[in-house]
């Protein structure tokens, strides 16, 4: 502990912490609570039983009442500890409860049923992570279908986007041809046309191409991105032309040069773009909401949204589903955090 403390309070070159350092650390720790706290709360809540979720005020950790297996009873009985009367301190199993009175039995003596006031019983509880919320997702909902839809869209769209964008970036960085400036301007022009402002005509085009209510209707329209082209082009420009010339001397075709030389050498930039694309597609909402209207085509995001829209929100399932939806992104974040940060900083978002 003291080592940790000295690590945290050590300063670089200065003797001791200035008051502004204390304020800074205070702010940052508040930030950690504010940024991570809600997610931690979500995850803990998702492991609570429906009864526990209804409880107000809520408790921090998920609890579940213990049960007793008592001879002569088919199902386990809820365990209580008696707080008043002659049985004080005894652990009992409850068989029935009505009108403020409870019928209980002692584990040692299952034959005798004892009636005592219900308010003298305190439940015996223990921290328990209920997994029913998760397992019920697979039983009651078409969770795997939603998961598959999301995965299919994400993987296909990312692959298509990487191929199409790197082909364009290759030519725009390594070829001198008439019209190159015009094409570059065109690509910049598309920056000004976000999907949100062309929803109606885009819907017509996608419908006319027979992609309404099809996963391809979500995959194809977003496959060419100006961000992707620029990010890759910026990187490919730094690849020396001599390598290409040498390959041409050896009679390599242009396609071979592209995928044997350019693509492997631009791997870092392609990786960054891939991560961004996965994130965009996995989290995409508005366009899928318009194109996919049948439940069996829903992505996870759409399914989440539609379940919470129902009159009585089914929080136990919803919480578990939310956790499973953010899980892949959280994993990507943990392992590839550094790339994501540089990628986003260098492209300025979408």
């Amino acid at each position, binding site marked *: 502990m003291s080592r940790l403390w000295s690590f945290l309070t050590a300063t670089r070159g200065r003797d001791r912490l200035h008051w502004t*350092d204390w304020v800074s650390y205070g702010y940052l720790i508040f930030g950690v609570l504010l940024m*991570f706290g*809600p997610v931690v709360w979500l995850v803990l809540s998702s492991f609570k039983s429906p009864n526990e979720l209804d409880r107000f005020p809520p408790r921090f950790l998920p609890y579940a009442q213990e049960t007793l297996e008592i001879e002569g009873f088919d199902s386990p009985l809820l365990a209580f500890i008696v707080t008043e009367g002659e049985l004080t301190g005894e652990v009992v199993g409850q068989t029935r409860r009505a009108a403020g009175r409870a019928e209980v039995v002692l584990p040692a003596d299952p034959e005798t049923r004892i009636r005592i006031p219900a308010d003298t019983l305190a439940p015996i509880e223990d921290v328990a992570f209920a997994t029913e919320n998760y397992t019920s997702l697979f039983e009651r909902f078409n969770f795997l279908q939603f998961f598959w839809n999301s995965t299919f869209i994400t993987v296909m769209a990312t692959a298509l986007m990487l191929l199409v964008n790197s082909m364009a970036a290759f030519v725009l960085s390594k*070829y001198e041809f008439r019209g190159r400036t015009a094409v570059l301007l065109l690509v910049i022009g598309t920056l000004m046309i976000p999907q949100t402002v062309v929803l109606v005509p885009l819907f017509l085009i996608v419908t006319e191409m027979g992609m309404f209510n099809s996963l391809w209707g979500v995959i194809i329209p977003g496959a060419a991105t100006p961000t992707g082209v620029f990010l890759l082009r910026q990187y490919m420009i730094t690849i020396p032309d001599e390598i290409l010339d040498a390959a041409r001397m050896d009679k390599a075709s242009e*396609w071979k040069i592209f995928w044997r030389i350019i693509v492997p050498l631009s791997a870092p930039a392609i990786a960054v773009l891939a991560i961004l694309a996965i994130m965009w597609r996995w989290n995409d*909402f508005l366009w899928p*909401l318009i194109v996919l209207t049948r439940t069996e085509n829903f992505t996870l995001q759409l399914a989440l949204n539609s379940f*919470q829209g129902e009159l009585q929100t089914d929080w136990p399932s919803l919480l578990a589903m939310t956790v499973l939806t953010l899980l892949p*992104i959280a994993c990507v974040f943990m392992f590839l955090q550094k790339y994501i940060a540089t990628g986003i900083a260098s492209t300025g978002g979408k």
Partner: protein
Amino acid sequence: MLRIITPVMRVIEIPMLALQRLLGINRLAWVFLAPNLILFGLFAFLPVILNIFYATTGSDNVLLSDRPYVGARNFVTLTDCGNYLDANSCREDKFWRAVWNTLWFVTLQVGFMVGFALLTALILNRDIRARGFFRSVFFFPVLLSPVVVALIWKWILQREGVLNAFLDWTGVGGVNWLVQADWAFGWSVFISVWAHMGFYTLILLAGLQAIPRDVYEAAIMDRASAWRTFRRITLPLLAPTMLVVLVLALIKGVQTFDEIYAFTGGGPGTATTFIIQYIYEEGFAGAPRLFGLAAAASLLVAGVLVVLTLIQLWVNRRNVNG
């Protein structure tokens, strides 16, 4: 992975090689560009043109040939107002409510977000321990999907949620947050700032770290106070980055939809209905589907975005050259 990719690439090579022999290397460039350009044309430029057709035609048919020409009627409907400051006096009052909500939202959201992002970036730029950790903590919510962000906060803010439990415990008493218009709007701004702040913090931090050290050393030599150093060195040198951040935040703020739609559904009433939700509801969620109005509203939004994007490109260019 390679096992799938390599054969695919080999197959593509056959027609590409044929085309290369046929066209020559320079004209082959267009073959490489073709998929991208076709996609851009089909899903970006063609829609812009079609949008104009939609905006000038009526009825709820999606096929253009079935839509009668109505001239500027959709725009007249949208802009027919007794008093632009009062949405109730407008024919399409929902549109103007959405416009005013969006303006308020963007002002508050961008203001708070850039303010807190700057504060966070300044603190992260100090000599602190575990900077990487703290940076990624603030960045983490950026990766969450809008629906997840909405649900996380809805769970906290619900009537019997943890925030109300805390307020009850302190004696303040809980509030039914998402049922009261002003609170719902306030929380919408809050979750939007919460979710996107990290992104701008990252850009501002990069901007701060690009300021040369020796300028600060010179300031120390001159015994400049911390405040004066901040005002006279940090702020002016950070100004270009600030401008980029501001314009980017505005472009995204105007297009806010996902997280607020999942969070409040635009309600209570129309308290948190923004302009993109208006377009979505007129064009796709309601019956009849008023594609004309939706397209006309889209064109108005597009106008704003084009101006903002041109400013962004101009700022970027100036930053690169300057």
